C-alpha cells in the first residue's frame, strides 16, 4: 500500500512496532484475500460501520463505511485505533487458569476443553449446592449479549449485572415513563435550537451524531450547553452555562415554568397528544427563573432568554436527553423535566422519533421456555426498584448484596466483556465482593482488571476476528464478520456460550451449529443469504409503517403526569429535589469522556495512548492558588471511600467548586502493560449512591478533598 519506498520498510519497522511483533508471534494469519471487508466497530457502543483493509492476512487500516448511518464514512480516533486492540501484545490468546493467589496475576495456559470443563463444573457445583441464583452473571452492552442473557436465563439465575445503572438508567426510565420507549432517535435536520445537558458530543463522540451536530452548528444551529466544565463542546456552543452540579433539574424546571406561565407551548400537540398538562403547569409554577438562579448559578435573565428562544424556535427546538446524566440522585427528575420540555415544544415526529427495537424483524434460533427464576433478584429489581427494567438492573446494589449476603449469598460470578473492578463505584467494595466468590470466570480479549482476579479467563476473539449477531440500524441489518482469522486460540462469544451451554446440559437453548448458522437463522425472514450480506455488509430490512403518534404508555399519549410513577409511590410530575452540596473544603468530583477513550477498555491501546494526554485532575486556577497548589503539582485526592494521587491541571475551564478526573485510568492489572500505572482510578473514589426511582448510580455526588503530597 505504501508503494515501493515504504515497502522497503521491514516488518519490524512497521507501525505499530508491537503490531508487527504480535503478528510475527501469532504466526501467519489465514489470508482471506487482500481487500476491504465490511464489518462493524466495537471501540464503543455506537457501532460504526467499518471497512477493514486486509493485506497479507493482517488488518492494516480501518475506514468508516459510508453506507453505515452511524459512521457516515468517518471514524473517530478510537475507531481508527481499533486494529491495535486486535494486535495488542497483551492479548490473551489461550484459555488461562489461575495458579497463584487471586490478584497475583499468575496463570497457566490451558486447553479450551480443560478451561470450559472447569467453568461448567464449577458453575454446576454452585447451582447444585446453593441454587442457580448463587451464580451472578454480568456483561456490558455488546452484540452477543443476547446469547449471554440466553445462557443466564437457561441456567436459571435471576442475578444479572449490566453497566446500565452506572450509565443511563435515569434517562431510559424517564423516557419510558413519558414516551414509552427507551430513547428516541433524534433528527437535527432543520433544527434551530439545541439544549445539551452535559451531553459532551464533541468528546463523548458518537461519530455520526458528532458529525451532524458539527455541520448543524456550522449552518447556524444555536447550542446551549450546560456543564460545570468548559469542554470541547462548550467551545463550540452559543451559550456555555457552567451550571452548579446537580442543579440542571432546577434549570429545566424553570424552562418549564417560563413555557407554561408565558403561554409559550404548542397548544395543538399538548392538547392532542399529552396527558397532565394542567398538573404540570401547576407543579412548576414556583420554579421561576428567579428561583432557579441562586441554585444553578445561572442568571434569571439568561434562563428566561433561553426559554423564550427555545420556544420561539419550536418545533425546531430540542432538549437532548444526554447520556450519562445520572450524576445525582435527582437525575431521574432532570430527565423527566427534559422529556416534558420536548413535549411542550411539539418536536415529536420531527426531531424526536421512535426507534426500532433491537433485533426487530430478524429470526431467532428455536429454544424451549426458560425455567422459572429460582429466587428474587439480589439487586432489588423489582421488589425495591419497581420501575427498573430487568435488562437494566441496579449493578451497584447487586455488588453490595454480594457483600452483605442479603437476601442471600452468591458463590460464583461469570463475567463477559465487562470490567466491574473499574466500572462500579467504590473499587474497594468490588474487590471485597469478588473475594467472597468461590469461583470467578471472565471472558475478555485482555487480562483486564477483573480478569486479573479471575480463576479462569476465556480468550474472546477481537471484533475484527469474529462474528456477532446482526445489528439493526434503520432499514438495514449490519454484519460484524471476521476480517482476519482469530489469533491464537481466541474464540467468538457465540461459540463460548454455546460450548458452556452444552457442558451445563443446556444445549436445547443453543440451537445453532456455529456462528454462520446463527446468522443464517437471523437472516431467514429477510430472504437474503449470508454470502450476500458478507459481501455487502448489510441486509435490507422492511421498515414498518408505524404511526409515530402512538406511544407505548398506559394512556397511549405522552405522559407529562405519569400514573405509573404515581402508583409506584413516586412523584408523578417532574419536581425539585435538592441535591447534596460538598461541605466546606471539599469539591464535587466530576467525570466525563475524552475523545480517545471508551470507559475502561481502551487505555491499553498503544495508538490511543500515543495521542492521549496524561490524565490530570482539573482544578480551577484560583482554587489551586487558594490551596497553595500549582499546575502539575502531585496531589492526593480523598473521598469518603478512597484516595488516589494524581497531577493537577490548574485551568480556567472548570467551576471553582469542582474537580474533574478522566475516568477509566488507574488500572490495577499488570496484564495491561500500556495502561497500567497511567493516571488514577475514579472508581476508587466514587461513593455508592443510588437513585431510588431509576436505580442509577449518582456519579457526581462524591465529594473530595485535594491536598499536596
Amino acid at each position, binding site marked *: *500500500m*505504501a*508503494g515501493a*519506498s*515504504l515497502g*522497503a*520498510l521491514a516488518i519490524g*519497522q*512497521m*507501525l*505499530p*512496532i508491537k503490531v508487527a511483533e504480535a503478528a510475527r508471534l501469532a504466526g501467519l494469519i489465514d489470508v482471506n484475500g487482500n481487500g476491504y471487508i465490511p464489518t462493524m466497530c466495537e471501540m464503543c457502543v455506537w457501532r460504526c460501520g467499518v471497512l477493514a483493509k486486509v493485506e497479507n492476512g493482517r488488518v*492494516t*487500516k*480501518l*475506514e*468508516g463505511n459510508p453506507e453505515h448511518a452511524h459512521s457516515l*464514512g*468517518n*471514524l*473517530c*480516533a478510537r*475507531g*481508527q*485505533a481499533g486494529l491495535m486492540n486486535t494486535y495488542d501484545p497483551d492479548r490473551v490468546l489461550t484459555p488461562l487458569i489461575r495458579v497463584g493467589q487471586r490478584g497475583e496475576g499468575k496463570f497457566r495456559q490451558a486447553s479450551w476443553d480443560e478451561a470450559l470443563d472447569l467453568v461448567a463444573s464449577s458453575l454446576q457445583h454452585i447451582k447444585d449446592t446453593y441454587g442457580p441464583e448463587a451464580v451472578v452473571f454480568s456483561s456490558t452492552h455488546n452484540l452477543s449479549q443476547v446469547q449471554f442473557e440466553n445462557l443466564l436465563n437457561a441456567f436459571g439465575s435471576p442475578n444479572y449485572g449490566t453497566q446500565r445503572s452506572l450509565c443511563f438508567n435515569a434517562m431510559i426510565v424517564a423516557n419510558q415513563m413519558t414516551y414509552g420507549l427507551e430513547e428516541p432517535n433524534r433528527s437535527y435536520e432543520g433544527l434551530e435550537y439545541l439544549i445539551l445537558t452535559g451531553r459532551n458530543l*464533541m*468528546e463523548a*463522540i458518537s*461519530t455520526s451524531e*458528532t458529525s451532524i451536530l*458539527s*455541520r448543524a452548528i*456550522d449552518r447556524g444551529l444555536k447550542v446551549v450547553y450546560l456543564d460545570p466544565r*468548559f469542554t*470541547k463542546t*462548550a*467551545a*463550540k456552543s452559543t451559550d*456555555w452555562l*457552567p451550571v452548579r452540579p446537580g442543579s440542571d433539574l432546577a434549570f429545566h424546571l424553570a424552562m418549564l415554568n417560563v413555557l407554561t406561565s408565558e403561554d409559550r407551548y404548542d397548544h395543538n400537540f399538548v392538547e392532542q397528544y399529552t396527558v397532565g398538562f394542567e398538573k404540570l403547569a401547576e407543579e412548576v409554577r414556583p420554579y421561576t427563573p428567579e428561583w432557579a438562579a441562586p441554585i444553578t448559578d445561572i442568571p434569571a435573565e439568561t434562563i428566561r432568554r433561553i426559554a423564550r428562544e427555545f420556544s420561539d424556535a419550536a418545533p425546531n427546538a430540542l432538549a437532548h436527553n444526554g447520556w450519562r446524566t445520572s450524576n445525582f440522585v435527582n437525575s431521574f427528575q432532570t430527565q423527566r423535566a427534559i422529556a416534558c420540555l420536548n413535549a411542550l415544544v411539539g418536536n415529536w415526529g420531527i426531531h424526536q422519533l421512535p426507534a426500532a427495537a433491537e433485533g426487530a424483524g430478524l429470526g431467532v434460533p428455536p429454544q424451549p421456555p426458560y425455567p422459572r427464576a429460582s429466587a428474587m433478584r439480589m439487586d432489588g429489581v423489582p421488589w425495591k426498584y419497581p420501575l427498573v427494567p430487568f435488562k437494566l438492573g441496579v449493578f451497584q446494589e447487586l455488588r453490595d448484596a454480594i457483600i452483605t449476603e442479603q437476601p442471600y449469598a452468591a458463590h460464583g460470578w461469570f463475567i463477559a466483556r465487562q470490567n466491574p473492578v473499574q466500572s462500579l463505584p467504590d473499587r474497594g467494595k468490588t474487590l471485597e465482593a469478588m473475594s467472597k466468590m468461590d469461583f470467578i470466570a471472565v471472558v475478555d480479549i485482555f487480562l483486564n482488571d477483573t480478569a486479573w482476579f479471575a480463576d479462569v479467563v476465556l480468550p474472546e476473539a477481537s471484533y475484527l476476528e469474529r462474528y456477532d449477531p446482526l445489528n439493526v440500524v434503520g432499514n438495514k441489518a449490519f454484519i460484524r464478520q471476521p476480517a482476519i482469522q482469530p489469533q491464537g486460540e481466541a474464540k467468538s462469544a457465540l461459540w463460548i456460550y454455546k460450548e458452556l451451554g452444552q457442558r451445563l446440559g443446556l444445549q436445547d437453548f443453543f440451537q445453532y451449529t456455529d456462528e454462520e448458522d446463527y446468522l443464517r437463522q437471523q437472516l431467514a425472514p429477510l430472504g437474503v443469504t449470508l454470502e450476500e450480506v458478507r459481501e455487502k455488509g448489510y441486509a435490507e430490512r422492511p421498515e414498518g409503517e408505524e404511526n409515530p403518534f402512538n406511544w407505548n404508555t398506559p394512556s397511549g399519549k405522552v405522559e407529562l403526569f405519569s400514573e405509573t410513577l404515581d402508583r409506584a409511590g413516586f412523584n408523578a410530575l417532574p419536581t425539585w429535589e435538592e441535591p447534596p452540596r460538598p461541605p466546606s473544603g471539599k469539591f464535587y468530583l466530576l467525570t466525563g469522556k*475524552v*475523545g*480517545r477513550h471508551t470507559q475502561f477498555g481502551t487505555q491499553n491501546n498503544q*495508538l490511543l495512548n*500515543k*495521542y492521549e*494526554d*496524561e*490524565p*490530570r485532575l*482539573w482544578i*480551577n486556577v484560583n482554587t489551586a492558588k487558594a490551596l497553595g497548589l500549582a499546575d502539575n503539582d502531585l496531589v492526593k485526592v480523598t473521598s469518603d471511600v478512597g484516595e488516589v494521587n494524581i497531577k493537577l*491541571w490548574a*485551568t*480556567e*475551564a*472548570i*467551576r*471553582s467548586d469542582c474537580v474533574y478526573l*478522566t475516568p477509566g485510568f488507574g488500572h490495577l492489572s499488570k496484564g495491561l502493560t500500556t495502561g497500567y500505572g497511567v493516571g488514577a482510578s475514579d472508581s476508587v473514589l466514587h461513593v455508592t449512591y443510588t437513585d431510588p426511582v431509576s436505580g442509577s448510580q449518582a456519579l457526581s455526588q462524591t465529594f473530595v478533598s485535594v491536598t499536596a503530597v
Partner: protein
Amino acid sequence: MSETTSNGNEYGFLIDASRCIDCRACLVACSVENEVPMETTRIWIQETGVQGEFPNLARFSAPYHCMHCDDPSCVSACTVGALQKSDNGIVSYDQDRCIGCRYCMYACPFQVPNYEWKEQLPLIVKCDMCVSRLSDGRSIPACAATCPTDAIIFGKKSDMLVEAHRRIDQNPGKFIHHVYGETENGGTATFYISPVPFEELGFPTAEESSPAYFNRLVTHGTPTVAGVVAVGLSSVYLTIKHHAEAMAQGNSGAHSGNHAGPKEAEGAVQGTAVPQNDTVLPQESERQEV
C-alpha cells in the same frame, strides 16, 4: 524566485479551525495509514489552549502537518534530492535517497519535518498527502477521510483556496480575514482559516517569500560539499533565527503526539545552526492539556 508554477492539477488541503474538535482521529488515522513509528508523528494538533477568564472562555485547535509549499525550503535544502516537489503539488520524500542530515528540518519555516530519533537508521517523517491512497483509488488522505467534523477537507488546490475565501466572505464576523498558507513562504497547498489570529494557534509567522531561493544557491550551486554545508547552514541559520524569534512572540500552541514542533524547535537553534545531536529530541512530549 519560484521554480514551480501552478499547473492546475495540484492537490491541496483546507483546514478550518472553527470546525476542529481536537478529537485526534486524524492523528491516529495518519499513524496507521503511514506506519509511523510510535515515538514520532506526521501530524499533530496546534491549539490556543483555554483563553480568557472563567466563565468567558474560548478554545480553538487545528491539525497541523506539511504545508506542501509551492517553492519548498526543504526541497532546496536537501542536498541529495530526497525531497521533491511533484507536479501534483505533493512535497514527497524518498527515504532511499535520504542521508539523515536533517537540513530539511532546519530549513522548513513551518518546522514540520520530524525525525525517527530512536531508530538506528533514522528517516525523516512528514506528510506526503497519503500518496499511496491517492494512487490506490481511495482518493483522499487518511486525515481528511476520517475527520468527523469536516475540519480537514482535501481536493484540487485551487478549489480549496476558493472555498477558504468563500467561507470567510460568507461569515466575515466568524473568521479572521486571512487564509494562512496562501502567501506564507511564497504560497503553499495547505490553507487554514480560523476564528482567532494564527499566532494564537501557535502557527509560525512565515515570510511571504520562500528562503528556498537562497538555499538553492548554496545547495545546488556550490562545488564542494564543505562549501555546501558551511554556506547552506548559515542560510538555514538565518531562516531559523527568524522563526525562533517569531515563535517566541506569543506562541501558546500546544501539541499532541510527540512532536518536536514550533515551540520545542526554539531550543534547536540556540547559539548554533549546526544540528546538534538530539537538540530537538522529543523529550517527554509536551502533552496537550485535557
